[in-house]
């Protein structure tokens, strides 16, 4: 079965979710572009969007329409060629409308998992629950006569466990998109012990057509991205605890969030990133990883405490930020949740006090200006040279943070999760939009 034939019948499980809808979008575009080739005229292409609720699936169709419109506007030059044979489509907007229709018509929304019984391949982006995944994979595999391939978006469960649990004999691969899949360039590719070579070859071709950057990751819980991120969270939380000797809890959270963003020149502070992903999701990933790690327990009491009080973070369906560790106004943190009093304390109440405590900050470049700058390396070298000798509490915290991040990166290589430094850095640069990789010589 060729690449194009396999993409004639596909199912996405969890299609209404944050990751699932993005995977659905990208796959729909890829399938539509194939179906519009002259040699594929008349061939049916089917993409099942499977999820548990009709309400959520209704939202997905709106999301698809809006996103396909944006993508069509961007690739209009090529689309005019695709529809050159259609004499009735003249203006760009007529072609765009037709393209949206052609993409959307591939997609069948359904709440019935049985739809996947006819698919040649299945993308899975459901909850990070190994038992649930295994049970669904087994069922589909048993009832589907085509020996379907499974592409799982898990960010933490070893693929070999899923392969063995569901008896797939290597018809599975980890294809881990970053959030949001339509925007993020990175895909972590994780082979199970027995993943079939043709499955991997397909995954590579598919990623290439989607213009993704592929980083291979070994089948160790958490892979590279979460392997770094989760340990980063644990470190920052431990530092908050240390700081609580001198500062109140909310002050300490503010300090670490500031250090991890401004001092480290990252796109957002560690606690904002936790909210972006979801406090619940982070906590869950840690517990899944812990089950599969032999010598390490990932456990964050700070997050557990917040979760127990119903503080979750995450995003609204329009992509805006829900309140979590921090409270947001127009996407910017304005207050911090205090589990002691169960209220959000405005940052302005203590900001100047903590800033003073952190001391004079070396003139750090803004992440936004550095990240795409041609002279990025020189700018960062200059900054870190200043940071190296700066004598303030903030600089000290920042230096320790950078060293720790470096250690986590090296640990990922030593434990065999990543092949090399470059792969670790690529994941953090493209998946987390860091301006520089954790493994560096700046300090």
């Amino acid at each position: 079965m060729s690449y194009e034939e396999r993409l004639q019948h596909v199912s996405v499980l969890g299609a209404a979710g944050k990751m699932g809808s993005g995977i659905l979008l990208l796959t729909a575009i890829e399938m539509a572009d194939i179906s519009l080739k002259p040699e594929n005229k008349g061939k049916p292409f089917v993409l099942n969007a499977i999820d548990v609720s009709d309400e959520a699936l209704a939202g997905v169709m709106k999301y698809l329409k809006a996103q396909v419109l944006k993508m069509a506007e961007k690739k209009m030059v090529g689309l005019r060629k695709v529809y050159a044979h259609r004499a009735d489509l003249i203006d760009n907007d007529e072609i765009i409308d037709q393209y949206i229709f052609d993409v959307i018509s591939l997609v069948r929304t359904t709440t019935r998992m049985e739809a996947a019984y006819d698919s040649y391949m299945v993308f899975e982006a459901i909850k990070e629950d190994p038992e649930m995944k295994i049970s669904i994979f087994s069922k589909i595999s048993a009832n589907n006569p085509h020996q379907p391939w499974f592409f799982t978006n898990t960010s933490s469960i070893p693929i070999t466990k899923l392969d063995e649990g569901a008896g797939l004999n290597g018809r599975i691969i980890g294809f881990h998109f970053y959030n949001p899949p339509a925007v993020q360039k990175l895909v972590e590719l994780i082979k199970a012990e027995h993943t079939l070579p043709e499955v991997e070859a397909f995954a590579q071709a598919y990623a290439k057509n989607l213009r993704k950057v592929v980083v291979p990751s070994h089948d160790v819980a958490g892979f590279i991205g979460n392997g770094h991120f989760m340990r980063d969270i644990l470190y920052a939380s431990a530092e908050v605890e240390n700081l609580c000797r001198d500062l109140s809890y909310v002050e300490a959270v503010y300090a670490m969030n500031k250090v991890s963003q401004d001092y480290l020149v990252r796109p957002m502070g560690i606690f904002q990133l936790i909210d972006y992903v979801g406090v619940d999701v982070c906590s869950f990933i840690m517990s899944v990883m812990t089950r599969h790690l032999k010598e390490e327990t990932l456990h964050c009491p700070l997050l557990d405490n917040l979760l127990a009080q119903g503080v979750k973070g995450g995003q609204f369906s329009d992509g805006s930020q829900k309140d979590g560790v921090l409270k947001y106004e127009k996407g910017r943190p304005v207050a911090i949740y205090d589990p002691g009093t169960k209220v959000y304390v405005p940052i302005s109440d203590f900001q100047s006090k903590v800033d003073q405590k952190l001391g004079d900050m070396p003139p750090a470049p803004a992440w936004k200006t550095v990240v795409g700058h041609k002279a990025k390396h020189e700018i960062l070298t200059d900054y870190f040279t200043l940071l190296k000798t700066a004598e303030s509490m903030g600089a000290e915290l920042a230096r320790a943070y950078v060293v720790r991040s470096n250690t986590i990166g090296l640990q990922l290589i030593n434990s065999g999760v990543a092949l090399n430094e470059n792969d670790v850095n690529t994941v953090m640069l493209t998946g987390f939009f860091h301006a520089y990789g954790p493994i560096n010589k700046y300090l």
Partner: protein
Amino acid sequence: MRRKVYMIAGYNTLSMGTGRKEFNPKKDRPGLEEYIREAGQGTLKQIGGAQNVDECVIGNFMASRFNRQANLAAFFPYVDDGLRYKPAIRVEGACATGGLALMSGIKSVLAETAEVVLVIGVEVQNTVKAIYCADYLAGAGWFKNRKAGHAYFFPGQFSDRAGSYFEKYGREKTRQAMARWFRNAIENARLCPTAQEHHNTVKDLEALAMMEPNGKSFVDHLNVFDCSKVSDGASAIAIVSEEGLKRCGIPVSDAIEVLGWGQLEEDITKPPSDPAELSTTKEAVKQALASAGITREEIGTAEIHDCFSIAGLMCMEAIGFAEKGKGADYILEGHTGRTGRVPINTTGGLIGWGHPTGGTGVHQAVTILEQLTGKAGDAQVEIPAGRPYGLTVNMGGDDKSLVSIVYKKGQ
């Protein structure tokens, strides 16, 4: 000419769009009627009010699609109640619309049906994204060519012209000259507060404009810096007789006199015989100079139709400032700059000031009025005594509709 014709009391709104700090595509902006009213009132205020106006002309290219609005002449009473029940007309000729509006006003004065004509040119284009804007503007070409045309239709047309020019006369130097054209446009726009690129602070403009064109996402031979802007804007001016000047109480020294013009059309259904040349422009300028009885050596400044940098370059050859194939040298030698032989597009032109399509021809006249009467502010260039004439070239479509006018300061 049977009587003298003057232009006075020019007014430009901001050219609004990307580049202006005030521009936010996600926020509500003034509509078509606000631009018409601001420009119209701007001129009325200078000429003693609506009671002095005999006739009105409004130039607009494509409000029917950009704003879903037609019947624009009926906006004159909205500009000022005093214009109710007065004759008004709307004219259209793609991007030469403004020039045609001026010609309509000139002819009313010559026909002695009016002593004072209020002329407004307007376009409000940021109602849609550029990719749809391209469809609307494609109306300036033959509709039967649209299907086979580029997604960005007119950039596609002029990219093809650039390609032909590169092939004939060399690519590298021509690209450099196009980049210099961009730099001159932006540097001039910085001196004009209403210009769309007034806020531009880029240091190395030529390096920026040398960005390699990308045919996959745009067109083969042009980058975005080679293109004029998508603009919202309006310009107004009054066209008057000697009698009209007196009525408005404006001294002749604050006026420019229309000395001659070339107004002509080429067949919209035919491709250019030589894509590396603007032959219709050439003919229009020839007629304008002949009817004014002057030579191009006597021109002190010119406002020309640089909808694309390559069009600007080819226009230098069409006017005859440069020999055929030598347009790039002429630009690179600095002759088009503010201190060059003949300063071109002194407030930025279509690339720097902006290109609200139906308004551009009127904006050109306003700039010439300001320059020849010494009222161009920071953008003022020196007009040598021996070369007192101003020239405009306003082009509609791909070198199809042309209006070229010769002016001098009123005496």
